[in-house]
């Protein structure tokens, strides 16, 4: 591949990420740690929306299953790696159970079902407050590390590996077929592609990474709570992050996540207004740059 803006952006971001622990304080390392997990949420969501063309309004259903699945296993005494695997499995199983019937529906119904799934998960967490901690949240016995630096490296490494895999998939034959099914399922089927099979695969991959990231986030924060991994406002943030960064780019979601989380933190001194300002900026970008930041930066290369 020739040298393109994308390569420059990725190299710049990697340089920033690798060097950050040497010049950023523990506090901001923590902010980026959270932003990186959000980045994986966003990339997983973009694979489903930008490529398979399905709007999943409930990414937090998958994230929540991963987070709470991992947390519950940890409470039962399992070691962290096994908990993460178990949480990811829970997200995949839940995702398939949701997607199998939902993918048969056309139009806005898929999105509505995913929305309802989040509400159902919320209800379950509250009903089984005895094991899940209900609205207060669930403390987990283990954490990844107590060092901000180590936690940062975990998150950064996870982001880079997930990004490489998801981006690679998006540029592979599978990504090409997914885009075709997302754009016109009839034409894709007429070319001999089993549309449901491919969309389900996208959903499983999305669920796998969402669930893993949800579990990692839980072991970073030492707690899984409705407000951090399940609430619909989290889902909205993920969606905004992808659209802000540029849908159908996979990597744009990371850009959007870092922007949302970082500015939310930087603007904290202005009090309650911070969320408002961040949302307003995101709204302006979505209104005037519908292709997102990365979409615009890459446009000359995409040869519009």
């Amino acid at each position, binding site marked *: 591949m020739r040298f393109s803006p994308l390569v420059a952006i990725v190299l710049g971001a990697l340089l920033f990420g690798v060097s950050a622990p040497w010049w950023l304080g523990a506090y901001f390392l923590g902010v980026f740690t959270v932003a990186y997990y959000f980045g994986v949420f966003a990339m997983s969501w973009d694979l489903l929306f930008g490529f398979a063309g399905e709007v999943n309004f409930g990414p937090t259903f998958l994230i929540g299953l991963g987070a709470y699945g991992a947390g519950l296993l940890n409470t039962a005494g399992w070691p962290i790696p096994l908990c993460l695997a178990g949480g990811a499995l829970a997200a995949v199983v839940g995702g398939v159970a949701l997607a199998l019937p939902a993918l048969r529906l056309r139009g806005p119904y898929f999105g509505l079902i995913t929305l309802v799934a989040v509400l159902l998960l919320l209800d379950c967490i509250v009903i089984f407050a005895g094991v899940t901690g209900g609205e207060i949240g669930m403390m987990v016995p283990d954490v990844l590390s107590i060092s901000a630096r180590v936690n940062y490296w975990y998150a950064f490494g996870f982001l880079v590996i997930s990004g490489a895999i998801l981006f*690679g998939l998006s540029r592979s*034959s599978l990504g*090409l077929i997914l885009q075709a099914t997302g754009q016109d399922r009839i034409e894709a*089927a*007429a070319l001999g592609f*089993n549309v449901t099979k491919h969309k389900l695969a996208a959903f499983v991959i999305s669920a796998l990474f969402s669930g893993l990231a949800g579990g990692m986030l839980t072991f970073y924060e030492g707690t899984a709570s409705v407000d951090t991994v399940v609430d619909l406002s989290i889902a909205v943030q993920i969606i905004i992050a992808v659209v802000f960064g540029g849908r159908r780019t996979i990597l744009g979601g990371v850009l959007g996540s870092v922007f949302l989380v970082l500015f939310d933190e930087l603007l904290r001194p202005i009090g309650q207004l911070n969320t408002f300002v961040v949302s307003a900026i995101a709204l302006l970008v979505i209104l005037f740059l519908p292709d997102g930041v990365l979409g615009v930066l890459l446009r000359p290369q*995409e*040869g519009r």
Partner: protein
Amino acid sequence: MAAPLLDVAGLTKRFGGLVAVKDVGFAIAPGEILGLIGPNGSGKSTVMKLVMGIEKPNAGRVLLEGIDVAGWPTHRIARAGIGIVFQHSRPLNRQTVFENIKLALLPDSLLKLVAAPEVAARARAIAERVGLGGVLDRRPPTLPFADLRRLEMAKALARDPRVVLIDEPFAGLTQAEVATFSELIDGFRRDGRAVLLVDHNVKSVARLVDRVLAMYLGERIAEGSAEHVMQDATVRRVYIGGAIETHPRKEIDARGGEPLLDVRDLEVFYGKAQALQKVSLHVRAGEFVSVVGLNGAGKTTLFNAISGLVPYSGAIRWDGAALAGRSPAAIARGGVVQCPETRELFGQMSVRENLDLGGQHLAAGERDRQLAWLLDLFPILRARERQQAGTLSGGEQQMLAIARALMMQPRLLILDEPTLGLAPVILEQLSKALGRLRDTTPITVLLGEQNVTFALPHADRVYVLEHARVVWEGDPGRFAADMGAGYL
């Protein structure tokens, strides 16, 4: 004759109470090209979708080399060896032409993430064959329309299908391009594939096909050579109607005054396809003007431009003022009311509610008078007043659509193909209503029709639209002599 590659029998498809395809059958041998023709709403596209599995047939069989694939999901039918060239190309715009062709060559597998090495070579070979060799690295949005159609051909070819279905192969192409595409399709024949061409009329596919099957209202009406089908009495009745009648009006013949509607040098493009080319026409107050032309000639586009629904170049003047820049709603309020081909009724509202909506802007007394007059004009609507519009028959729906348009008290009523999909007996009722409308009111009408017998009786003047251009203009009385033979 060789055993047929594709053998279809007893194909039937119902949508609710509507029988879209009724007991249709045909066979295509290797190296044979069959034309499937019929006007809009005849069911020809549904037949194509049934063969491809995009719709599931209610009855019938689709034998592909002896295996019944009827009711299979589309991707399995595609894998079994049937390919389709869609009329509207929707390529992946962010991928190159090469990648778009490559897509069609990929296996239906989740695990093969990297395309096999021979795929690239095959994609190149196919691109060369359809004439895309020079634009492999371009992205579809930068390509001319004909190249986008070539890309669709390439994608269908990539699957190496034994049966190829092609939807309106020549729509939007220039004469020179039509020749190239004919040559491409002829190439399919030489490969020994069975080809089904679906089109509105015989004329466009006549030189290419071995046989033609004509459909109307879901049924087969004729089959045979292109000449035979063109001469067939039923086909001629469907396309041209029966004997042409005209009813000239003397008082209108006083040709004078400023035209109410004046269209000059109108040009419209859909993306890169030119839908109208330098079209000029005018309508005077009180006139009944018919625009006749086969499906795809540009009638709907012309009306949509007048109604402000599509961007255009050229001038459209209404009552002395330019319409450019006015919103569709403002144009409709200004007195230009279109009754679209698709009818656009509110299917879940009652007949009465649909009519009331059309009369929203009228004063109460005025509305009641208008309603009473319309229910007299279309007595059937009075009987159906409380019925849901969506449950009416096709003819009743058309009458309701016209009545709703008239509720707006238009100065110019534009009727786009009101006969679409209607049985002959309904046409007669509709025609009588139009006659009464013309004779009892001062209304100005612009009627677009494929069915000449329906379009001519009430017309004061006629325009013939063909391939995006006005090719004839004159009195209905002269139409038969000048155009009669050449129209189909």
